[in-house]
């Protein structure tokens, strides 16, 4: 197996991490970049998006590791539709009707996501949906597994604050309305 090219861009001044990444992507289709601040991580994610790369971001202590994968030209269309599948979960129950049934259904829904192909690119939890990512043990465990498979899991920060659950978030990352709207705007398939 070929080892992935790595760039250690920690302690580099802005915009050097972006420039180094840009240059490296001309020769490599897979790349790992390590940076030590959020601005550099955000900027590299923007660059990657512009150059047609899939980005996974992992927070590593005070550092950020970004794994970039160039989506190949010939199967770009197919891959892009995979990449852009987003689940937008806006309640801790699925469907309207019996609340009890709704709770069972949502659990089944999230747990089944692991079994199907292709995996979604992102799952966004909003309003009472954030309770799933914080309170339900079984769902949390499965979300961890999805995250390990490269699914980006986002919870709405305002909602976490509202339900006073911010310190209980153990899986995925906190997001804001700008990012959520941006994701939905760029998504090909949005499942609500």
């Amino acid at each position, binding site marked *: 197996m070929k080892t992935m090219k790595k760039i250690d861009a920690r302690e580099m001044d802005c915009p050097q991490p972006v420039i180094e990444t840009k240059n490296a992507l001309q020769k490599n289709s897979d790349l790992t970049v390590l940076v030590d601040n959020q601005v550099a991580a955000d900027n590299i994610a923007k660059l990657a998006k*512009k150059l047609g790369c899939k980005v996974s971001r992992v927070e590593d202590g005070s550092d950020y590791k970004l794994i970039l994968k160039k989506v190949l030209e010939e199967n770009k269309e197919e891959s892009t539709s995979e990449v852009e599948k987003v689940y937008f979960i806006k309640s801790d129950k699925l469907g309207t009707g019996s609340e009890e049934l709704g709770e069972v259904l949502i659990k089944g829904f999230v747990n089944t996501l692991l079994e199907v192909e292709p995996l979604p690119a992102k799952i966004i939890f909003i309003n009472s949906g954030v309770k799933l990512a914080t309170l339900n043990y079984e769902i949390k465990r499965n979300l961890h597994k999805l995250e390990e498979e490269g699914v980006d899991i986002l919870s709405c920060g305002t909602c976490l604050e509202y339900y006073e659950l911010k310190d209980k978030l153990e899986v995925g990352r906190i997001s804001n309305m700008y990012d959520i709207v941006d994701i939905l705007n760029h998504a090909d398939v949005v499942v609500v």
Partner: protein
Amino acid sequence: MSPGTLSQVLRQVNHISKDNNLLVGLDSPDDACVYQLDQDTAIIQSVDYFTPIVDDPYLFGQIAAANSLSDIYAMGGKPITAMNIVGFPSCLSEDILVEILQGGADKVAEAGATLAGGHTIQDEEPKYGLSVTGVVKPEDLITNSDAQVGDSLVLTKPLGMGIMSTAIKGGLAKGNLDNPAIKAMTILNNQAIGPMREIGVNACTDITGFGLLGHAWELAKESNVEITIFSEQIPIFDEILDYAEMGLIPKGAYSNRQYLKENVEFEDQINEALVDILFDPQTSGGLLISVAEDKVADLLIGLYGQGVEEATVIGKVSGNQSKIRVATKKGEINEERRI
């Protein structure tokens, strides 16, 4: 320093001065402070300095001076004296400092002011700027606290200077006068003063480190008004949209965004790169002028006549609750308001 950190620091400092002659001070954040000397005269004072954004020292001096002088113009004043503030490393040739100071001196002369002195310290990297004093008749003073509902908002220079500086640092753009953003940074904001006074405007501020939305927010807060920015009307330097998509976004844009997130509402789907541009910190940016709608055509004609060719209507004062809305088009807002 980020606007959030700065206001946090300033809150902790006791300002005991309660001098009634201080017309604009720390209690009403504006571009400069204003102190009334007698019935006919107020002085305007401002200070600003920063690290080089281009390699050419003469050009850096010009940009730093144009930026420092701008605060006086934004208050409707005329600069009279200026003093240099310099940080300079001992390892660099003195010739470089000569060039920086010459750039500054030439801009001060162009502004019709006198360079009266300065102060220099040894520093790890070069820093340059000026402390400028200007004068204004109290009745001609233009603050950021008197924008009126219904006003049109005019911006006199395109946006993207911070992103361009980042691109220059990354070696992707030229740091000379062939670059329209660099050229614009060297241009004094004095050309706008004549038409502004002649036509009569309600409020003005200059766009610098807090970005368009940061300074627009100060105007909205101090005037107690809601401002709507039409994102598609915003003039932007060439290539900036491309650089923004590439992630050449300065740290200041992120801190401005973080600081303003509670006060800015994005109405429509707006291109993410454009959002970054609206928060991009500017160097020697343009003036944001709030003028009655029935006078805006005359103001634009006056500005074009003075060579301020990039002046554009970019928004309006749309309500009386401190807030900023960003919409894509003018039409959509009008329609929404009618409903």
